[in-house]
C-alpha cells in the first residue's frame, strides 16, 4: 500500500516510515497540511496518517480539503494525535477522518488499524465498481427495451384500429403489454378479433406477442376459419414459448352481415353477451385450455357459433379487470362486473372502466387490463379507397388455343388462360368473373359438344353423379375431337372489351333446350349465368360455336 504520512515532526515521520516500510508499504512524507493536500493529489495514496497540530495548515483543514477532492471515492484517513479530550477526538471524525490513534504510537495497534481500514477501502472499491457496472447495465437494459418496444410496436401493426363495430380499452401495467388485442378484416367482408393474455406481464409476456400476431395476420389474410386460426396459433406458441408460458385467448369472427359470430375461447374470463339494451343474455365460459399448452394432437378446436340479433354486444376481456383489487385486497370480481349488464346502464362499457378506476383507488395497476366490445351489425371498416381509374391498356391483342383430345384429357385449361390474360391491368379485377364465364363455356363445349353428354341425366341426384362419372369415362376414351378457344381484347372509348369464342368438333346441341330450366333443376344453370355476366352471348345454329362479349368496366 502507498501511505501518505502528514506530520511536522521529523522524528515522528521517521518512526512511522520505519514501521510501515518494514511491513512492506511505500511511504510518502508531507511536513504540513498543505503539503499533505498537494502530495495527496500528485501521489494518490491508498491511506493517509494525519497529525493534528501543524503549521501552515492543520490536520483538520487538510482532511476537509482531501475529502473534498475525493468526492464519492473512499480513502481512509487516520488521525495521529497527542490530544485526548473528547471534543478533539470527536472533531477528528466530524471533519472526515475515519479513525484516530493516540500518540505515542503503539506499533501493533497501528498495524491492526491500517489492515482494518485497508479492508474497508477494498470493500468500498468493490462496491463502487459494482455500482458502475450496474449503472452501465441499467443503461443497456433501457436501450434494449427501447429497441424491443419499437420492434414490438411494428410487429403489432398499427395495433388495433376500431371500426364502427368495436370499442376497446388497453392499459398495460408496464411498458410492455402481456395482453394482445388485434383485429383484421376477413376476405368475405367480416371481422376477426383476437384477445390474448400471456402468463405474467412485462417484456417476457410481450415476447409471445410476436409469433402470435404474425400467425394471426397470416391466417386472416388467407381467410382461415376460427378453429383453424386457434389451432395454428396454438402450434406457433407451443413451439415458441417455454413450457411455463402460455396465453389465455379468444379468437372470434363475425360475418359481414353481423348475423353470425363464431368463437374459440380458452382460459379467459367468461365472455359476456348482451342484447342491444345492455341486458345480459349469456355468459360463455372459456372451456378450452389456453393456447400453447396442448400439443397439436390434443388440441381441441371446437368452436361456439351464435346467431345474434342486431345490436347484440360481445364483451371479451382479460382477468386484469375482474382481479382489480382495492387497497384492502378486496377483488372486483365477476359478480360486480356482471351486475353492470342488467339493462339499466346507458353505456356499460364506459361505466365499467370508470368503476375499475374508482375501485382501485390510489393503488397502482398491477396487471394488464384489456377489454373489447363488439357490436353485432353489418361490418363497416374504415378502409381507404384507391380511386385511381385502371388503365385499360393501349394495345389490342388476341389469344388462340387449339386443344386436341389429348390436351382435353388433362386438367381444365381455363385457369391457365386466366393466369395469362389476368396479368393485364385492365383485366386483373375481372379475373374471377371471367373464370366463371370461361369455365361454363368450356364445360358446355366439352360435355355437350365433344363428349355428347345430355343434361337430362342430371335430373336426379344419382343421375348427377352418373353424369360426371360418364364424363370421366368418355373423356378417358376420347381419341378424336377438339376445342378451339379464342380471346380477343378490343379497345373501347372508356373500357376495353373481350370477345370470347369457343368452337368445338361435336355434333352440336339444341341451344333453346340449354336455356330452359327452372329454379329447382340442378342443371342448366350455366347458360343463364353466362347470359347475366356477359354483355351478349351468341350461339351458332348448330350449337357448336359460341361468342360472348364482356366489357371490362371498373368494378368500383
Amino acid at each position, binding site marked *: 500500500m502507498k501511505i501518505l504520512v502528514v506530520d511536522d515532526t521529523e522524528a515522528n515521520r521517521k518512526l512511522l516510515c520505519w514501521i510501515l516500510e518494514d511491513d512492506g508499504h511505500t511511504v510518502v512524507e508531507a511536513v504540513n497540511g498543505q503539503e499533505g493536500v498537494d502530495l495527496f493529489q500528485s501521489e494518490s495514496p491508498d491511506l493517509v496518517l494525519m497529525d493534528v497540530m501543524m503549521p501552515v495548515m492543520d490536520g483538520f483543514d487538510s482532511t476537509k480539503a482531501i475529502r473534498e477532492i475525493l468526492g464519492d471515492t473512499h480513502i481512509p484517513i487516520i488521525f495521529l494525535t497527542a490530544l485526548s479530550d473528547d471534543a478533539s477526538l470527536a472533531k477528528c471524525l466530524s471533519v472526515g477522518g475515519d479513525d484516530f490513534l493516540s500518540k505515542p504510537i503503539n506499533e501493533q495497534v497501528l498495524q491492526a488499524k491500517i489492515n482494518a481500514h485497508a479492508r474497508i477501502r477494498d470493500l468500498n472499491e468493490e462496491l463502487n465498481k459494482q455500482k458502475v457496472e450496474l449503472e452501465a447495465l441499467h443503461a443497456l437494459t433501457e436501450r434494449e427495451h427501447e429497441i424491443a418496444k419499437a420492434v414490438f410496436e411494428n410487429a403489432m401493426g398499427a395495433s388495433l384500429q376500431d371500426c364502427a363495430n368495436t370499442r376497446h380499452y388497453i392499459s398495460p401495467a408496464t411498458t410492455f403489454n402481456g395482453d394482445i388485442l388485434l383485429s383484421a378484416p*376477413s*376476405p*368475405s*367482408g*367480416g371481422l376477426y378479433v383476437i384477445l390474448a393474455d400471456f402468463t405474467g406481464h412485462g417484456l417476457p409476456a410481450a415476447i409471445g406477442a410476436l409469433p402470435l400476431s404474425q400467425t394471426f395476420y397470416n391466417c386472416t389474410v*388467407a*381467410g*382461415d*376459419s376460427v*378453429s383453424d386460426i386457434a389451432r395454428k396459433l396454438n402450434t406457433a406458441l407451443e413451439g415458441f414459448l417455454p413450457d411455463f408460458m402460455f396465453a389465455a385467448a379468444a379468437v372470434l369472427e363475425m*360475418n*359481414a*352481415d353481423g*348475423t*353470425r359470430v363464431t368463437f374459440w375461447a380458452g382460459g379467459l374470463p367468461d365472455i359476456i353477451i348482451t342484447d342491444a339494451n345492455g341486458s345480459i343474455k349469456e355468459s360463455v365460459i372459456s*372451456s378450452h385450455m389456453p393456447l400453447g399448452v396442448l400439443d397439436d394432437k390434443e388440441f381441441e*378446436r*371446437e*368452436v*361456439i*357459433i351464435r346467431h345474434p340479433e342486431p345490436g347484440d354486444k360481445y364483451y371479451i376481456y382479460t382477468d386484469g379487470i375482474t382481479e382489480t383489487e382495492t387497497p384492502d385486497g378486496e377483488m372486483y370480481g365477476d359478480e360486480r362486473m356482471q351486475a353492470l349488464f342488467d339493462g339499466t346502464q346507458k353505456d356499460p362499457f364506459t361505466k365499467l372502466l370508470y368503476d375499475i378506476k374508482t375501485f382501485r383507488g390510489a393503488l397502482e395497476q398491477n396487471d394488464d387490463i384489456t377489454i373489447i366490445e363488439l357490436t353485432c351489425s353489418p361490418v363497416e371498416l374504415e378502409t381507404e379507397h384507391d380511386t385511381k381509374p385502371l388503365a385499360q391498356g393501349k394495345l389490342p391483342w388476341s389469344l388462340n388455343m387449339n386443344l386436341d383430345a389429348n390436351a382435353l384429357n388433362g386438367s381444365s385449361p381455363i385457369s391457365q388462360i386466366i393466369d395469362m390474360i389476368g396479368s393485364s391491368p385492365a383485366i386483373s379485377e375481372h379475373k*374471377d*368473373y371471367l*373464370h*366463371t364465364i370461361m*369455365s*361454363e363455356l368450356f*364445360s358446355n363445349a366439352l360435355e355437350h359438344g365433344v363428349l355428347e353428354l345430355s343434361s337430362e341425366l*342430371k335430373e336426379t*341426384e344419382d343421375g*348427377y*353423379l352418373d353424369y*360426371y362419372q360418364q*364424363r370421366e369415362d368418355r373423356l378417358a376414351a376420347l381419341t378424336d375431337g377438339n376445342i378451339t378457344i379464342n380471346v380477343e381484347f378490343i379497345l373501347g372509348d372508356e373500357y376495353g372489351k373481350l370477345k370470347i369464342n369457343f368452337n368445338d368438333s361435336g355434333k352440336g346441341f339444341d341451344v333453346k333446350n340449354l336455356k330452359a330450366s327452372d*329454379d*329447382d*333443376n*340442378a*342443371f342448366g*344453370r*350455366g347458360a*343463364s*349465368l353466362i347470359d*347475366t*355476366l356477359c354483355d351478349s352471348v351468341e350461339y351458332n345454329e348448330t350449337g357448336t360455336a359460341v361468342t360472348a362479349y364482356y366489357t371490362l368496366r371498373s368494378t368500383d
Partner: protein
Amino acid sequence: MPVESALSSDNAELTISIVGRFDFELVQEFRAAYSDQKGTRYTIDMRATEHMDSSALGMLLNMRKTLGEDTKISIVNCRPQIKKILTISRFDKKFSIE
C-alpha cells in the same frame, strides 16, 4: 382436403368448408360431407372458395333436395364474386346467404 366438415361443440350445426375451386371434381366429396354426418342446421363456409361453377350450383340444389326444404342451410363468408353468382342464380330463395 378441399371439402371439410365439422360439427359444432353442441353437435347441432354441421359446417362444411370448401377450399379452392368448387366444381364437378368435388361431386363425391361434397355429397359425402352432408350424408356421413348429420346436424340440425347446416352451414356451407365459402371463406376459402375461390371459384364456383354451375356444377357446384347443382350440387347445392341436390343437397337442398336431399335434406328437405325445411332444413336450415346457410351459405356463409362468400367472397363478392361468389355471392354474385349465387344471387344471379336466385339461390337466396332457397338458402340463407350471409
